[in-house]
């Protein structure tokens, strides 16, 4: 089912729909009262001059009679002035209401859109994240949303305001003189047509400018990141030439564009000037013929003035509409992607018991299998070491266990405590698996918040304990703000080892029954490594642990070792057993201990 993009937009507008209606009503009232101004002035002038019999609708005539007739008004102009002020007050109140209600409604819509985007993205499958580029998604969540917002709060409102204004103005103008209205309106159609045509033409040039600004920006970026190469090869003047010549080109594009823009505005100025002149001349002739009073003439000119600007802007509004359509579509493409979902019969699990991989085969693309018929068991409360090179499938194994990718039916099963993980709720599964990656990702929050990010309430005791176990306490207390030190983008930069240890502490906080260390002590020096390991053993004697590593010293502590080679289980057994068998493990063992032995000689 292909959902229309405006139907999609309606989803977000709907919750604030009544606010939008209220905003529209307000702006209409404001516009209408604004349009009364020229009428009051017209009446005032005609009264003051006291010539010609002004013709008004009967109810206005009655109203005038009740305050003393036109003659009385003519000599007491303060009543008219007061009427203007009164109208202005009504107009301003509703205009204010419009602005506030409209902004609130738009912001409510945008908030709903942003919130849904954020929460949706968090819940999209890992596979989606690997498929899409970060920069592009962020662009959609920020600038595209901003474009939609601008359209709803600005263009949509102004489009509808122009409509209302046109209706009221036409109503008043035709009420005064139909022919003159026609003469005023016909040239305006030319102005609108010209404006739309121009904006279509100029859009491409705007895009060319944007594109070239991007290029210029890329040249600068490249120069700044490559500053060492630039200096070492003495490329400064060449780089400068490159930047200057592109800058020149980019600037010339803008100059050209600005000439077209200036031409557009001038021609448009001339057109509306001539339109006004035409209106004036015909108006004068009508007055002369007695078909129009001076007051009506002035009111006509005033209405014409009110209409000209929004009409000249119409071309831009329409070209913005096209851009908004594209933005809505880009946002929609994210929202329609399906989120991760548990099977209907999925249950909570405490994730106790053996982990069993049973004839598991898996590939990211149909053509190539990364895992081929892998079977092994990790008995509960034991430690499994995994040894394998790049492309051996060890990462895929962990991604499958953590349900980052779901194992399709018929590709074997992975079970924990006898239960197929496909039937375990993803949240409860992941909560019970603590995973520390080689490239630890930290959030831009304080250290304490990073460690305790899995907690509902920050429990400093627990956090300090976890930091202690990860040999991090000393590092943290050396920071000026201790546990309140900001890390990440806006704070201190931690070294690779410190990041890994923070991630370990973060993982320890929840005391998960299953722990995975994916080469996660690679950036920690040997002594700290040993200290952390001892601490982990003491604390996590009961957890089921998976260690992925190349180091024999690390692996040999495991109860069992699995050697993966090109997606297949090549060896499985206790470290002692494998040491005796010919195979990869023994080779690695010999390479590592042998060399040490040799070096020791």
């Amino acid at each position, binding site marked *: 089912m292909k959902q229309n993009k405006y139907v999609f937009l309606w989803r977000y507008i709907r919750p604030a729909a009544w606010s939008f209606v209220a905003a529209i009503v307000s702006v209409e009232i404001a516009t209408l009262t604004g349009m009364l101004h020229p009428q009051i002035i017209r009446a005032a*002038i005609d009264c*003051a001059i006291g010539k010609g019999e002004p013709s008004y609708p009967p109810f206005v005539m009655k109203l005038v009679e009740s305050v003393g007739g036109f003659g009385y008004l003519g000599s007491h*102009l303060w009543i*008219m002035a007061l009427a*203007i*002020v009164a109208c*202005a*007050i009504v*107009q*301003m*109140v509703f*205009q*204010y209401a419009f602005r*506030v209600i*409209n902004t*609130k409604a738009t*912001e409510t819509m945008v*908030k709903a859109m942003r*919130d849904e985007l*954020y929460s949706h*993205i*968090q819940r999209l499958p890992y596979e989606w994240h690997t498929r899409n580029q970060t920069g592009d998604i*962020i662009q959609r*969540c920020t600038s595209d949303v901003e474009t939609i917002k601008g359209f709803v709060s600005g263009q949509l409102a102004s489009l509808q305001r122009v409509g209302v204004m046109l209706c009221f103005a036409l109503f008043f103008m035709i009420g005064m003189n139909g022919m003159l209205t026609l003469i005023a309106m016909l040239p305006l159609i030319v102005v609108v047509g010209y404006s739309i045509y121009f904006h279509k033409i100029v859009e491409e040039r705007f895009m060319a400018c944007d594109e070239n600004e991007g290029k210029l*920006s890329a040249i600068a970026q490249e120069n*700044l*990141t490559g500053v*060492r*190469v630039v*200096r070492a*090869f*003495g490329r*400064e003047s060449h780089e*400068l030439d490159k930047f200057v010549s592109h*800058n020149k080109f980019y*600037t010339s594009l803008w100059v050209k564009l*600005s*000439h077209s823009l*200036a031409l557009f505005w*001038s*021609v448009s*100025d*001339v057109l509306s000037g*001539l339109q006004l002149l035409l209106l004036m*001349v015909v108006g004068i002739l009508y007055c002369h013929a007695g078909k129009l009073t*001076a007051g009506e003439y*002035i009111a006509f000119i005033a209405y014409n003035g009110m209409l000209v600007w929004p009409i000249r802007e119409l071309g831009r509004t329409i070209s913005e509409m096209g851009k908004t359509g594209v933005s809505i579509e880009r946002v929609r493409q994210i929202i329609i992607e399906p989120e991760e979902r548990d099977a209907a019969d999925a249950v909570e699990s405490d994730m106790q018991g053996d982990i069993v991989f049973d004839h598991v085969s898996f590939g990211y693309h149909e053509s190539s299998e990364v895992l081929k018929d892998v079977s092994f068991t990790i008995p509960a409360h034991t430690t499994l070491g995994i040894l*394998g*090179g790049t492309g*051996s499938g060890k990462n895929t194994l962990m991604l499958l266990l*953590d349900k*980052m990718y779901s194992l399709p039916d018929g590709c074997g099963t992975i079970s924990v405590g006898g239960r197929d993980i496909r039937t375990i709720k993803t949240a409860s599964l*992941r*909560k019970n698996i603590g995973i520390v990656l080689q490239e630890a990702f930290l*959030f831009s929050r304080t250290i304490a918040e990073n460690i305790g990010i899995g907690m509902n309430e920050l429990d400093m005791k627990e956090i300090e304990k976890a930091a202690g176990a990860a040999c991090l306490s000393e590092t943290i207390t050396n920071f000026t703000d201790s546990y309140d030190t900001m890390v990440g983008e806006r704070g201190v930069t931690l*070294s690779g080892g410190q990041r890994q240890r923070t991630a370990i502490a973060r993982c320890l906080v929840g005391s998960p029954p299953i722990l995975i260390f994916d080469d996660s002590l690679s950036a920690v020096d040997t002594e700290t490594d040993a200290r952390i390991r001892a601490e982990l053993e003491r604390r996590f004697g009961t957890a089921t642990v998976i260690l992925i590593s*190349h180091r024999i010293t690390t692996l040999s502590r495991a109860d069992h070792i699995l050697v993966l080679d090109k997606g297949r289980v090549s060896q499985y057994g206790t470290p002692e057993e494998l040491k005796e068998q010919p195979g990869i493990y023994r*080779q690695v063992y010999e390479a590592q201990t042998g*060399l040490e032995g040799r*070096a020791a000689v």
Partner: protein
Amino acid sequence: MKMMEEKHKKLPFFGIGKLLPFIRPYRTMITVMVVCGILGTMWDIAATLLERYALNHFIAGHTTDTLWLFVIFSIIGVMAMGALGYACGTRATTVEVSINRDLRNAAFRHLQTLSFSYYSQNSVGYIHSRLMSDASRIGSLASWTIMESVWHIAYLIGAIVVMFSINAKLATMVVSIVPLVALLFSLFQKKLVAVNREIREINSRITSDFNEGITGARTVKSLVIESKMEHDFRKNTDDMWRKSSRHARLRGLFAATMGFASSLALAIVLWKGGYIAAEEVGTFSMFMAYAQGMMEPIRWLIDSISDLITTEVNIERLFGLMETQPDVADSQAVIEKYGDCFHPKTENWEPIRGDIEFRHVDFKYPDGDEYVLRDFNLMIPFGSSIAIVGETGAGKSTLANLICRFYEPTAGQVLIDGKDVRERSQYWLHSALGYVLQTPHLFSGSIRDNLLVGKPDATDDEIISALHDVSADTMLEHLERGLDSEAGESGDLLSMGEKQLISFARAILADPRILILDEATASVDSLTEAKIQAAIAKIIHGRTSVVIAHRLSTVRNADMILVVKDGQIIESGRHEALMAQKGAYWRLYTKQAEDDATEKILA
């Protein structure tokens, strides 16, 4: 990488003084623009007078004589207005973009001379946004701000003069509300500026939330903190909602006050001036037009003050960059003899031999407190190779930085061919130096373009032979466009290993006497690994080389090995001697050897 806290220094006259040298080349254009602007506004004022004439003469006077004259005069006026508008518009934009261009060029040029300490203290993103966004906001100050002030001030003055000359009493009443309005507007303006800033801040928070949520997706998932992250995100969007609403209330109140003031002016004209309509309806209408027309200029003038305040920050940041003095700079005498990097005087350059000597060098980084080198002495005669080893982040690049004169010693001397590096120009040194980076930095452009960086006048034969030297010529076969294939970031065709080989070939073409090589740690396939090993052996042959080494073969064959830990040199000597010591080097070497062997077995 330290994020510099933005300190706001007040610049006199919003920092416009600093811009003068950049404005000066366009003064004729600006003058023409200003004159055209004044003429255009005069027509604007005159048009209202023409309308007055039309009302008084034709309508009130019931005549149509001179109507043709009126029409012809008006048409000429409209045309002239269009032409003047065009002249102003094109000039204003041309001046704006030209000043932006000049500012960017000047900043870019200055960046080419700034020291590395600047680059290490400021992130690329920070510098980049000074160069791109700050510069882009400044040009409009000298063009559109001037243009619009001319328009608005001229209108204001013109309208007031005309009103006073026609009816001083009524004019006084109309003008009397101006200060009141101005006061009200400026009160709002201050608050609006503050709320605007808050909104921008929240906006950037929301953007970085998205960034974090997307780049950290796997971690969020595995910690099952989606709801928590979402909850925190909602706090920010809630905040945004509140601030935006507040902004709308202020903005709305501002607009309402403005609209009300304009109606009030109208009411005054009607009340106190309505009687004029009986005699001169045109004059009455003219007063109404001026009274309403005056509001826009007042609003604009107040708005533009807040614009100036915002632009002042941009000016301050950009000029902060341009006024930063490089820590490492050639002395005047050196520049006179050797030229600078833009105008080198190659005729005065001595040929380089390639001896390097550190003599009693003390060094600490400008942003660090601790000395990294203390009375360090080392002689590296031409042709010898030095390997520097140590853990990641141990400070291995310090010596390379000093040899390249990216930094200068705090005390003591670095000598090239027995002469202090400071006695010759940086450009002289860099022209004799080759530098191969750990992560090869290729420029956007073709493979040929990248190789020409090493030797701008190299022939295709020379290029091919350099590629052959590093066994990278075979790579060209699988590239459709050969040497013309795209090599930079957008060139995804090249693997990491291939990019490394290209950067080696680039160094060979440059044929430097001194080579600095920062070896890559990233693992590549074994075939490429073998090629890289061979290429390294080849390029360091016959040069003085300083290698930040990760590969055992490079280390083992070095004439001298320096072991660095926590920024200090803890061991030095040849391979055999260091192995015998069984210290840090021995540990590093063994671990590395084991890892290599393991890698080989697992591959």
